[in-house]
């Protein structure tokens, strides 16, 4: 129990909601008629929180995230971000990091990070200054002139995170960003992400398959069930911050992980 947080996290966390999802349902037209993908999903993400969504494949967790990003439309229900509804992509409110780093291969790392700014015709100097700051933040100083194929998988995701944050949105949505990385890089990147989150005080919603990753990163884990996707459990991760790799070996960590696993298994039997 030594790693349980009996002191509150050192990060001041306001009570205000960064994201509020209410009664979100989605039905898509499948081959055999209508398929309910999401059913009455409601959740609140407090400002500055790190919330992880886990669930079996095809439970609609990516769909949910894409809807929060304004990249896909729901059949019914509302999504509020900073009190205002999400109707389409809005990089000033929500940054997105995808599973594939999705960097433009013909642009250098720095130009990739500048891309969202250049789309809005931000002045060149400001673009360069902010992109440089982001490059430093993600620990890639000196790699700005590299093209994506000259970067490793982990570095590509660092650039992708920098790109998601360059417009300084309060919310960062991440769709299995480390799923394609090898185990060691994945651990390092998780640790790095927590550092960036701590430095920037963003609200993060993070989708993953990995229960270890979920427990390690999250303030709060939301467990989803398979089709139709619903939120079946909400688990507070009361591990102290900053998180350390040693915590993974503790009983508390194991029990939290086990509880999430039980929830997922029970529903898929």
């Amino acid at each position, binding site marked *: 129990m030594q790693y349980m947080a009996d002191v509150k996290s050192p990060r001041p966390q306001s009570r205000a909601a960064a994201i509020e999802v209410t009664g979100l349902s989605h039905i898509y037209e499948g081959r055999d008629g209508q398929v309910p993908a999401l059913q009455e999903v409601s959740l609140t993400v407090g400002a500055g929180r790190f919330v992880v969504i886990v669930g079996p494949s095809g439970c609609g967790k990516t769909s949910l995230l894409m809807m929060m990003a304004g*990249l896909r439309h729901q059949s019914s229900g509302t999504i509020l971000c900073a009190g205002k509804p999400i109707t389409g992509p809005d990089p000033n409110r929500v940054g997105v990091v995808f599973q*594939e780093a*999705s960097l433009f291969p*013909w642009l250098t790392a720095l130009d990739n990070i500048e891309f969202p700014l250049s*789309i809005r015709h931000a002045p060149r100097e400001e673009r360069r200054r902010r992109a440089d700051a982001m490059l430093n933040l993600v620990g*890639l100083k000196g790699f700005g002139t590299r093209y994506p*194929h*000259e970067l490793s998988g982990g570095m590509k995701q660092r650039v992708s995170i920098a790109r998601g944050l360059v417009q300084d949105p309060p919310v960062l949505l991440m769709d299995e960003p480390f799923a394609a990385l090898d185990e060691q890089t994945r651990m390092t990147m998780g640790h*790095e992400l927590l550092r960036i989150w701590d430095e920037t005080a963003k609200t993060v919603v993070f989708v993953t398959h990995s229960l270890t990753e979920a427990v390690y990163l999250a303030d709060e884990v939301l467990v989803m069930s398979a089709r139709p996707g619903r939120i079946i459990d909400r688990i507070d991760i009361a591990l102290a911050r900053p998180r350390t790799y040693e915590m993974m070996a503790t009983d508390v960590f194991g029990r939290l992980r086990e509880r999430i696993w039980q929830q997922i298994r029970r529903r898929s039997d």
Partner: protein
Amino acid sequence: MQRPSPATVRRLILVLVLALWEVVPLTGVLPELFLPALSKTLTVLVQNWAEYAHALAVTLYEVALSMAIACGGGILVGALVGGLALLRNLLLPVFSSLYAVPIVILYPIFTAWFGIGSESKIAFAGIYGFFPVMLSTAAGIGTIDQNLLLAARSMGASVPQQIARVVIPASIPTVLSGLRLGGALAIIGVVVAEMLTSSDGIGYLVTRYRTVLDSPRVFAAILMILVLSVVFDLIARWAERRTLAWQTAGRRERGAQIRARSLAAAPATA
């Protein structure tokens, strides 16, 4: 002993072929009608330079215009066919099948329509080169990584911005390889058309001197066409390298990539 580089071997082979071209006819193994010596061919070319230069100018003019038609039309139609699902499903199978048709059978009709001057060559070679450009443009646009478009949308890119900033740069590699093939076919188209029915151009010189069995002059014309094709290919490759620097840059510095990988593991955790 060090093995010679492939580039050196290639140069040696070229020198060998040229040397054989010179030596074999001199030995009398092959009569001059079959293969005049390289020196003789060059001499004829220089002595009749005015005639050959004029023919080259005509051919180059036809090649330039037919390339413009093949590339411009191919990119335009390819972009529409690749970008719009309706057109893609409707037209792509038709175009793909047409590609296999020997379009040269249409050339007599072209001469009936456009006469035996430059126009019929330009029209024929333009269409001949059009197909590979159009098909590769359609393929390039149709196979764009949808994740890139999704990422651009998440950054707030409008549809025109998505086209200008993502679709076009992403399809450039495939379009360029189509242009190289289409350009080469346009040259072939012009020369073949000149050889079939015409009154001018390098292809015409080949046919004309072949009928009078003047082999050195035939080979002089062939040599010019060879040079023309090789120069075009060199220019096309150079343009490709320039435009696609981002694709090849890394291959030149594998070492840097490996260093980068080891650094990526933990640059900022310490």
